[in-house]
């Protein structure tokens, strides 16, 4: 554990230095983390990678909601934690030539977007950087305290629309209302791609917009996970019959996701 920094009203950013070094990790993939103390819950919890530092450090943006996240937030600098990963399948590769990409984040659902934006803006040897004008983040929460690290997202140099249900910061309303507002004001073209991560009712609303307007849509799902590696069948999500995941009625969030195309799985 390199550092633990508070973020928002109930979040922390954990910076960890793994004992092994990783190359570029795909945005949207996740790690299972748990504290190494006896008092920590025994089953690790899944967290999307938030940022990958040049030094090899990895960052995780975590909302403290129960004993597992509490144990991680209470770890001390210098302590070891247990990490299993990288796991799962992340966001599709972002390329310059596609339609503009709107990311819709709700609360702690912003975590898998930072690294995606970072990588899109940096490009790779094989793939040119994406023009910042092609990328928009609509970031919503019940109040300003739940817009974790909002300033860090704004520092990326892309358009960020903060929105709060209580109007305490940014657009007064939810992310879908903010999205509709952008379209009404003609700030976005009608043809865009949508990526979303946040509470399920929010993602359902985003998926509905995508269906109504026939837009490509992906989301990153959170489920309880027993193992993270595809052996326990605890993280089942219902598949869509006509989707690309085949005819089996359930998929495993940990190995088939956590990022899914909206046409492939059902939000419950």
């Amino acid at each position: 554990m390199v550092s633990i920094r508070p973020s928002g009203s109930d979040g922390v950013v954990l910076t960890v230095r793994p004992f092994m070094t990783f190359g570029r990790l795909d945005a949207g993939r996740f790690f299972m983390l748990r504290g190494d103390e006896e008092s920590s819950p025994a089953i690790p919890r899944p967290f999307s990678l938030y940022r990958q530092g040049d030094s090899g450090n990895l960052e995780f943006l975590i909302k403290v909601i129960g004993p597992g996240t509490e144990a991680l937030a209470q770890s001390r600098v210098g302590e070891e934690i247990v990490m299993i990963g990288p796991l799962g399948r992340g966001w599709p590769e972002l390329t310059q030539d596609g339609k503009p990409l709107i990311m819709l984040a709700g609360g702690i659902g912003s975590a898998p977007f930072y690294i995606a934006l970072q990588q899109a803006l940096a490009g790779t040897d094989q793939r040119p950087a994406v023009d910042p004008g092609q990328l928009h983040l609509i970031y919503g929460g019940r109040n300003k305290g739940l817009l974790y690290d909002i300033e860090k997202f704004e520092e990326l140099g892309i358009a960020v629309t903060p929105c709060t249900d209580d109007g305490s910061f940014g657009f007064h309303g939810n992310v879908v209302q903010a999205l509709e507002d952008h379209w009404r004001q003609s700030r976005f073209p009608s043809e865009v791609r949508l990526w979303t991560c946040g509470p399920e009712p929010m993602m359902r609303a985003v998926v509905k917009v995508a269906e109504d307007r026939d837009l490509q849509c992906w989301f990153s799902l959170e489920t309880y996970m027993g193992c993270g590696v595809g052996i326990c069948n605890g993280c089942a999500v219902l598949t869509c019959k006509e989707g690309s995941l085949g005819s089996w009625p359930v998929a495993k969030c940990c190995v088939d996701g956590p990022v899914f195309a909206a046409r492939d799985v059902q939000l419950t």
Partner: protein
Amino acid sequence: MSDLSTRLAGLALRNPILSASGTFGHGLEMAQLVPARALGAWVSKTVTLTPRPGNPMPRIQETEAGFLNSIGLENRGLDAYINETLASVCDPDAVLIANIGGHTEEEFAIAAARLDDCPKVQALEVNLSCPNVDGGRLPYSTEPATAERVMAGVRAATTKPVFAKLSGNVTRIEDIALAAEAGGADGLTVINTLLGMGVDWRRGEPQLATVVGGYSGVAIKPIAMRCAWQVCQAVKIPVIGCGGIRNAEDVLEFLAVGCTAVQVGTASFSDPACLATLAQELSACLDEEGIATSAEVSGRLARNLQCEAGNL
């Protein structure tokens, strides 16, 4: 290095450590984390004759000292298991025990017969005791006569060694163990998860969609050990201990009460690579005590107690 080789109902195993069914996929999923040679044997997730989509979500929940699950035997059925899963097992180091389940007594026998033709499967474990189907009624593991009939059907259908996996949710597990032995079981796995549940009182909601599920992990170790002890006293066939085992000390404790081998389950969720090193830890632990073979530890408790009784 101490010798961990283990004879289990005719199987020659590298060590006495097996993966518990349902916590290791079909083994293939774990190949990168746990090489097959690290294990005595892989026990597959339960396979049923027909596909089962499993139970509704949520299916899992961690509790204070263990893990609740209600997966409900999600599997693609025996045809897919034989044609796809088994077809992709190509590790010559793998000793594979296929775990089979059934909705009726006949289904167990049909599955056993079909798998008898699969050379990659070295033995069968019969899941008499899944708590997450049939509403937790445990129809095959709470009544001696039924357990005996299922095992006799399986025994008649296969030439491979067959193990019966028993439930700890009974008053006298020895009775079920003796019945399974009488039915022709070559060994017994003791125990499956115990019935358990959790609730969110604020919302008035169950933690598992099925309300009741199977409880596993460190909390059940003393119960599993007591069951293993009672069964070891009662039967002549080998017993595989299972329940809350996560380190070499735990393995040796179950051997000491009379088990021939052990299975490790929930510990693989805490650390999916734990089985990659457990056999080495076991060996190191025995070396430290100057014990040459793990088999020597097996049954130590009963021998000592008999000795003491003899001295009285």
